[in-house]
């Protein structure tokens, strides 16, 4: 261990930028890696050093362990930060980094392995007296055995791929009639996605809330929690809006969940930043869902509320330093909300909508933070997750944070890719969101694509387009712009005319 001078960041996009920023603040040099289309990506531009690691497909670049280790060696890096996604939760990567004599900014490969295998994780959690959802302790191969267990725990049940994640290979079955077909599709999806068609069965929690607890562990055996994040607003089992604290739990439940999260992390000798995810039912019972053994996408809301820089803490912990704060000094102050800005079309089934960013206007002002991985002129490619940035608003109260977020969303402009800004406004204005009456089925049960558009269309759009079309026609006809007030704007009009002429 010892000090860290130069960190290779085995990731891209906004999280790579986030790590580069923390490195620079600590006086640590950063080494970026980039695939072909990412030569001009923001993370490549911001790092101290940048090395090419292959073609666009992640399997040939960001997931190539030998290439990454080779770059680390050539660049003289002494540590590797995995970010989230990609190799961040692959124990063989953490192990390879360690064996190459480098520091892995994260937990041990043993901890990743224990928590990455859902069955093993569940076994360890039961042993550590962490509450888990009733269900099978082992993955089940035979359908008959599934049927038998389902009779014991009762419907509804959730079928989950043994090696799954991100919502793949998960099926909710409400009644006996749907069991056979649910099992068949869960197995086939699990087989194609993970090469393993075993599933495990658990009691489904109806209208659950997804509430997770941030933990930090150091190499001296200390583990603390930094309270909760509510991540119930999800589409296709992926989070889009998160907040901290959660309205759903009282102080007693909050403290209990924190203590259990620390127990869970200690059970695997956890080091670094990690997250214990819980399902919380309508009676505030909470059950261990899984542990994410890495930094989370939504970590900024915890940072805003607790004042602890989690990525900085990761780097300091990796360098062998003790935790930056004691448990008693961690307090939640105010409220923070995160909206993930995705290049996707909420009016078209949230389909990814990549493209070149022609205009990017990002909100600023009191309590607003935009953790972005893109810039104006950047081409959002189809090869990676379509997240552009994470917009975070902090307020003294939940109401203030919500109002501030709506204000920030109003200022957020992305031209080119379709983004989900209007969707976020819809969600934040929804009476159920305002009341805090949310669960993981919120979007599926409340959202209809036609809700985003005001009735009767938008005359402002029509007026703007007609004026732009007129100016395009005038510039094409070679009409000299008139003198006076109009001459300066006209020169910019000409630019629109020319650009569109090239395009049209």
């Amino acid at each position: 261990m010892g000090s860290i001078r130069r960190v290779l960041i085995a990731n891209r996009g906004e999280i790579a930028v986030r790590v580069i920023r923390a490195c620079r603040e600590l006086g640590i040099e950063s080494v970026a890696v980039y695939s072909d289309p990412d030569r001009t990506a923001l993370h490549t531009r911001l790092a101290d050093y940048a090395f090419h690691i292959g073609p666009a497909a992640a399997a040939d670049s960001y997931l190539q362990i030998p290439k990454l280790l080779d770059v680390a060696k050539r660049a003289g890096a002494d540590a590797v930060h995995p970010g989230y996604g990609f190799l961040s939760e692959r124990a063989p990567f953490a192990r390879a980094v360690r064996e190459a004599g480098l520091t892995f900014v994260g937990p041990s490969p043993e901890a990743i392995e224990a928590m990455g295998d859902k069955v093993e994780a569940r076994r360890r959690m039961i042993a550590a007296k962490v509450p888990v959802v009733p269900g099978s302790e082992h993955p089940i191969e035979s359908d008959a055995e599934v049927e038998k267990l389902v009779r014991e725990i009762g419907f509804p049940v959730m079928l989950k791929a043994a090696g799954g994640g991100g919502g793949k290979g998960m099926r909710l079955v409400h009644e006996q009639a749907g069991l056979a077909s649910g099992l068949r599709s869960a197995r086939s999806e699990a087989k194609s996605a993970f090469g393993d068609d075993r599933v495990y069965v658990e009691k489904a929690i109806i209208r659950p809330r997804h509430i997770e607890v941030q933990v930090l562990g150091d190499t001296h055996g200390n583990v603390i929690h930094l309270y909760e994040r509510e991540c119930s607003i999800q589409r296709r089992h992926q989070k889009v809006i998160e907040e901290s604290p959660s309205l759903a739990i009282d102080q007693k439940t909050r403290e209990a969940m924190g203590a259990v999260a620390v127990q869970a992390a200690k059970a695997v000798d956890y080091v670094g930043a990690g997250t214990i995810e819980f399902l919380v039912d309508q009676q505030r019972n909470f059950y261990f869902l899984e542990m994410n053994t890495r930094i989370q996408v939504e970590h900024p809301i915890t940072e805003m509320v607790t004042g602890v820089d989690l990525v900085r803490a990761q780097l300091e912990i990796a360098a062998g330093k003790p935790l930056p704060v004691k448990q008693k000094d961690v307090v939640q102050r105010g409220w923070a909300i995160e909206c993930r800005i995705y290049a996707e079309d909420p009016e078209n089934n949230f389909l990814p909508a990549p493209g070149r960013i022609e205009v990017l206007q990002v909100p600023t002002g009191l309590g607003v933070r935009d953790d972005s991985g893109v810039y104006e002129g950047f081409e959002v490619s189809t090869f990676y997750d379509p997240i552009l940035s994470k917009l975070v608003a902090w307020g003294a109260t939940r109401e203030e944070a919500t109002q501030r977020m709506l204000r920030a969303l109003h200022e957020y402009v992305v031209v080119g890719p379709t983004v989900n800004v209007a969707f976020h406004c819809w969600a934040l204005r929804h009476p159920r969101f305002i009341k805090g009456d949310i669960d993981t089925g919120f979007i599926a049960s409340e959202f209809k694509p036609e809700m985003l558009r005001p009735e009767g269309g938008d005359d402002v759009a029509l007026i703007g387009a007609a004026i732009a079309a007129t100016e395009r026609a005038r510039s094409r006809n070679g009409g000299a712009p008139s003198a006076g007030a109009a001459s300066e704007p006209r020169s910019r009009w000409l630019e629109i005319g020319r650009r569109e002429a090239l395009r049209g």
Partner: protein
Amino acid sequence: MAEGRPYTYQSPAGDQTRTVVVVPREDGRYEVTIDGATRTVDARATGPHTLSLLLDGAQHEVHLTAKADVWTVLSNGLAHHVTLLDERARRAGRSKQGPGDKEIRAIMPGKVVALLAEVGHHVEQGQGVLVIEAMKMENEIKAPRTGTVQEIRVKPGQAVEAGELLAVIDD
């Protein structure tokens, strides 16, 4: 105040068509008439794609891109697709929006996961025709129009490139 010549557009949207007349004024402002109602608009370009509009003192910012006669206007966080046909476009027969494209093309590279319709099937506009996995997600590709599936050019498991023709739907 001297005024320029009027620019007249037809804007088809759904089952109605609106008429828009724009008259640029000497002072840089515009008289905009929509279906007979006229407003004075102070419009300034604040960027290569951005217009600041003052409508009776109310400030609106819109962001524009265009492909031929179809303008994509970002207003209040939402993209609006506005078709504007001038006289020349109308004469050239680039008339109203048709019933929707006949061709279904891949909008991004991916892999065909499943076919939901077969050649000869009748499909309604918006009905799923095939499923493509791209960017880690399965996406149902919907029929752009009502009609009969004339051709399906791909098979499950096949990799497709952006822009590749997947299926054809016609009457």
